[in-house]
Each structure stands twice: as structure tokens, then as C-alpha cells.
């Protein structure tokens, strides 16, 4: 059991919960929340590997996590803007309403 494993398990758990939720919930916002969770799971694994990884000096893991937080912020903003636009056209936020793009 290496020192990073518990954190990785935590990250995996978080990822799984996030994915399950994203798949199950009808409300677009909650799907976004699920995705947000998955993102944070990835962040956590980065930091875990950085902390217990072989050479922490160049802080690449830490930096990657930092940038992914910024990007996740931007992603959340755009995602929610999309949801608002979706709501304006479909009057509802459920994902079933947004299925016109199909074969």
C-alpha cells in the first residue's frame, strides 16, 4: 500500500459518484455538478501523485491541478450559460428536452 493509495481511492470514489450522478440525473445542472465532481476527482489524483510521487520538485502536478481549477471555473461558467440559453429555448432544463441533434 503506497502512501498515495488512500487518496487515489478517494478520488476514484468521487469519480464514480460523479459519473453515476451525471448519467442518472435528468436536470442539466446536476449533470454539470456530476462533471464538476469528476473534474475534482482528477485534481485530487494529480495532487496525490505530486505529493507522494518520486520527484515533487518541479511541482508539475500542483501546477496542473491549479490550471485545471481555473479551466474548470471557465468550463462551469460556459456550461451554465449554455443551460440558460437551453432553458430560454426549451422552457425546461431537463436533458430530454435537448435531444433534437439526433439521427
Amino acid at each position: 500500500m503506497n502512501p498515495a493509495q488512500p487518496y487515489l481511492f478517494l478520488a476514484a470514489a468521487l469519480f464514480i459518484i460523479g459519473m453515476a450522478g451525471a448519467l442518472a440525473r435528468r436536470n442539466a445542472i446536476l449533470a454539470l455538478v456530476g462533471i464538476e465532481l469528476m473534474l475534482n476527482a482528477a485534481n485530487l489524483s494529480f495532487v496525490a501523485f505530486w505529493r507522494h510521487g518520486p520527484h515533487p520538485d518541479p511541482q508539475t502536478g500542483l501546477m496542473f491541478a491549479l490550471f485545471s481549477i481555473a479551466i474548470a471555473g471557465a468550463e462551469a461558467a460556459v456550461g451554465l450559460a449554455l443551460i440558460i440559453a437551453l432553458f430560454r429555448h426549451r422552457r425546461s432544463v431537463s436533458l430530454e428536452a435537448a435531444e433534437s441533434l439526433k439521427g
Partner: protein
Amino acid sequence: MHAIATHIWLIPLLPLLAAGVVALLPKRASTAAIGLATGSMGLALVLSLAAFLATLGGHADGAAHATHIGNFDWFRLGTGSVRLGFLLDPLGAVMLVMVSFVGLLIFIFSIGYMAHDPNRTRFFCFLALFASAMLGVVVANSLLLLFACWEVMGVASYLLIGFWYHKPSAAVAAKKAFLVTRIGDIGLFLGMLWMYHATGTLLFFDDGRGCLEADALTQLGGTAVRGGLTAATGIALLLLVGAIGKSGQVPLHVWLPDAMEGPTPVSALIHAATMVAAGVFLVARVFPLMTGGVDTPVGEGTSVALQAVAGVGALTAVFAACLAVAQQDIKRILAYSTVSQLGYMFLGLGTGGVAVGMFHLITHAFFKALLFLGAGSVIHGCHEQQDIRWMGGLRRLMPVTYATYAVGMMALAGVPLFFSGFWSKDEILHAAWSWAPSRWPFVLGVVGAFLTAFYMTRQMAEVFFGQYRGGVRPHVGHGIPEATHGGTAGGVHESPGVMTVPLVLLAGSTLVLGWLGTPAWPWFEAYLNGHSAHLDFGRLAAAWPMMLVSVVVVALGIGTGWWVYGRRSRVGATAPDPLESQFPRIFRGLQARLYVDELYDATVVRLHHVVSMVCGWMDELVLGGLVTLVGLGSRLAAFSARSLDELLVNLGFDAGCASTRWGGRGFSWLQNGSAQRYLGGLGLGLATLAILVLWGWRHG
């Protein structure tokens, strides 16, 4: 002194700059335009005088040619480069002074003359452009640069002649002038090409390598071409064609009289002093080439080119003189007189060499400019009236113009002693007399001199003596608003100071110039050939019989002129001309310019017409046919393609499409728009990947 030599290119540049700036000025900024143009000409004059002094200095140290050459690379062309250059030698210096001095006076004259013309800014721009082009020709050391300035001069003359473009006649005259000079230019161009082909350079003097220098000339002289002609003479003849076109010699003289449509200062500047003189200057410049490469002494010009030059000159002199006799328009008389005098210059060049021709050119420039400006002042005074039948009696009304005009007339006619025209014409006749090949040029020259004296006196009588016939007359305006003049007899009055001052100056110079080239003190010839002149009355004695002949001829001319026109001054404006009453048919023929224009129309223009008809026909049938053929072919191809496609492809292809569509519908179930199903798919992929990696890793 040396400084001005290297910066000789400044002289043409200044007027060019002025022209450029003036071109940009709005119409209402005319005073600025005038100031700029005249100022630049004044500066050019100052620089030319400085250059002239430099050549005088050079003369002192006895250099064969007090010439300063400045060559430079125009642009690099691969390994070699096109070289141009500027040249200052006595010939050029003289011409520089003459052109800039006469040009300046004409600029000043035109300030007054064009005072009431709204477009005078544009006028001065073209004048400055022309002046810079002329100065460019003079200082050019390369035939290419000379040709370039030659062309700009042609354009400037077209613009200036057609200045009053709203007058259809002016527009036509401008076009005619431009086209005819173009014909001459083609000759010049071919000559240039042949020269470049033969010698490899177009620079006149390039310290040994120039085309007018010894080894190039010998090389040219040596290469014989079919028909016994040497390359040198061939090129010379071609250059001569260019000169003939530009100077308005016989075959190509038709444009010059019509060019009188332009404003009088234009005629004065272009068709008296400078442009037409350019042809003569060209021949003078390439004179070594003309003499077939052999440096023959003055007078025995045996080379074919020189004979041609002399012949053309003599012929033109007489022919133009005859026409001048029967003209009614004051400016047309002067135009024909210019053509004939140019004929004399060519004659002088052909027989007597550069000095003789150039001396007559310089003197003629001054008094012909004087005559034209005088005519301009007359026209201005008589409210734009150009027809001499409606003038008369201006002796009292315009005293200054009359006096200066008289000086010019006597100089042109060749009245002895005081007037420069006598000395220069006498030189030519003397040279013609002692010309080896044949006596005919001398005879024609004498006849021309007589006719010149005759028609000048006719003109003087008609215009300045008798009664003013211009009281009631049809309004012949140029469409420019008529300025109402006060004064007597239908409002004729003396021109303002700005116009009469140049006349007086020119008159003064006409008187002075004569002394430069007298047989006793041939300063001009010595200056040109680069050695010093010394006073020697002996030569005067030798030349005495020839002078006597010309005096007699002039006296005869003036006498008959006075006898026919002077005694009984013309009664009414519409009264027939005395000559017309005696020799009606000849007079009317001469008046109609011996039907030369009609001849050209009949021959050249019709030929052109026929050729264009043929081309039109050819284009329509041959090419048109071809195009329709192509159209037909493509339609045929399209038809066959469609039928092929219909039969062969569709049937097979449609079947294929149907099956793919069927397959597509099958898969579309997978993509049903639900974002979450896609995420699920993603998840499945991730899972199988993880498991595979795991399995592989575990067992690998």
C-alpha cells in the same frame, strides 16, 4: 565651377519638381503655381549661366571638349545594369542658356497673356513640365534618357496644344501633333535599338566606351549593311527621321501649323524656340555619327546622312516659305516661317557642320520667340483676333509691340549688319555655297531667303500699316470670357507691361546675338569647337561676295513685299489679297497648304482605314468561328456525359446508396441526442480500456 558640372541634373529637375507641386495645387491657387513655375525657370536659368561659365572656364585650359560627364547606374539588371548619364559640353551649355532664358521670358509673358484664363494653374504646370523635358534632352548623355525626355516633351506639347480642349479644333490639332511626332519617334526608337544592338551601350560619352566615341564609331562605320549603307549612316538616317518628325520638316510638317491652336506662349515656347529646335539639337548631338564616323572637315560633308539632312532642309525651307506667303492667320504665317527656318538649320548642319546650324538655331530661337510673343500681344490686344485681314494700323495703337515686332521681322528676313538673323543665315548660305556635292541647296536657300523677306514684309504691312479693320467683326473668341478693354478703335490697346517687357528683352538680345558669330569674330564656332577665337577682319573680306548676295536678295524680297502690299494698304477686311487677284489658282493652292493634308488623308488615313477593316473582318470571322466551334464541342461533350451518367452510373450507384442509408438508420439509434447516453458510452469505453490494460499488464 566644377560643382555645377556634377550637379547638372539639377537644372531639368527644378522645373520638374515645380510641375509636380503645381499639379497638386487646386485651381484657385494660381498665383502660387505661377510663382513656383517661374521661380523654377529663373533658378534653372541661373544654374545654366553658371554651367555656361564652367564650360567657358574649361575652354581656357584648352581641353578638346570642356565636357563633364556624370554617369550612374539607373537599375541593376542581373549582372549588367542600365546606365544613364548627364553631360555638360559647350553645345549643351549654349542650348541650356537659350532654353532657360527664352523659357523664362515666355513664362513671364504668359502670366499676362493667361491672366484671364481660369485654368492657368494647369497651364503653368504643363509649361514647367515641358521646360524640364527640354532641359533634360539638352543635358542627357544617354540616348535612352534623351529619348525619355523627348517623349515627355511630346506629351507636354500635346497637353499644351490641346490646352483649350473645349475647342474641338484644338483637341484635333493636339492629337495630330502627337501622332505625327510619334511617327518620327518610331524612327528615333528604331535607331536607338539598332545603336544598342550594334554598340551595346546608349551612353554617348562613357570615357572611351560611349557610342559616340572613336572605337564605337569606327566599329559602326565598318559594319556594312545591304545596299552599301554603313550601320552608322543607317542609324543616323533613322535618328534623322525622328528629328524630322519633331522639328516638323517636310514630310512630317503638317502638325506644326495646326499646333497654333494652343495659346500663343505655347506656340512661342514650343513651336519656335525649343521643341522644334530639339530635332536640330539631336542631329547636332549625334553629329559624329552623322559624318559616318569619319571626321571630315567642315563643309565637305560627303556622308550620305549629311546629304540627306541638307536636302531635307533645303526642300523644307523653300516649300514652307511658299506656303507662308498665302496664309491669313498671323500665327500660321509664323509657323510656316519656323518650318522653313528649321529647314535652313538642317541645311546649315548638313553643309556647314554643327557650329553653323546651331548658331542659326540660337538666333532663330530668340527672334522667332520675339515674333510669336509679338503676335500674342497683337492677338491679346485685338481681343483674340488672329486673322490679319481684320487687323491693320496697329503701328499707332500698339507702338511697343510694333517696334519689337519690326526688330524681329528684320532679324528673320535677314536685314544686314545689326540683326542676328542676317549673320546666321549668311553663314548657312556661305556654307551651302561652298558645299561640294551640289549647288542646289544654295539655290533653294537663296529662293527661301527671298520668300522669307517677302512674306514677312507682307505680314508687317497687313498688320501694322493701313487702317484698323477690326471695328465690326464676328466674335472669334476662344470661349474664354471676353475681357472688355477700354481704348480706341474697337478697344485695341497696348498690352500690359508684363507682356511688353519680354518683347523688349528679346528684341535687345536679337540685336546683340548677331555679333557672336560674324565671320570677323567667329566666337560661337570657336567656342563650340573648344578653341579660342580672335578678331580677324581678313575673313570678313573673304566672305564679302556672299554677304553681298544675301543683302541683294533680302532687299529684293522686302522691295517686292512693299510694292505688293505696302503701297496700297488693304481696304476692307474681305477685300481679296493682291497676290490672289494676280495668281488666283496658285494663291488658293498655297493657302490650302498645297493639299498635303488631303494627300495624307487620301493615302495614309485610307490605308489605315482599309487595314482596320481587314482586321475587323478577320477578327470577326476567324476568331468568332473558333469560339462558336468550342461552344458546340462542349455542348456535345455535356450531352454525352449526361446520357452516360444516366445509364451507367445512377442505376448502379443508387443501389449502393440505398444500402448505406439502411445501415445508417441502423446506427442512428445509437445517436439519439441524449447527452447522458453519450457519457455512458464514454464510460463503457473507459471501463473496457481499463480492463484490457489490466488484463494485458497482468499477463504481459
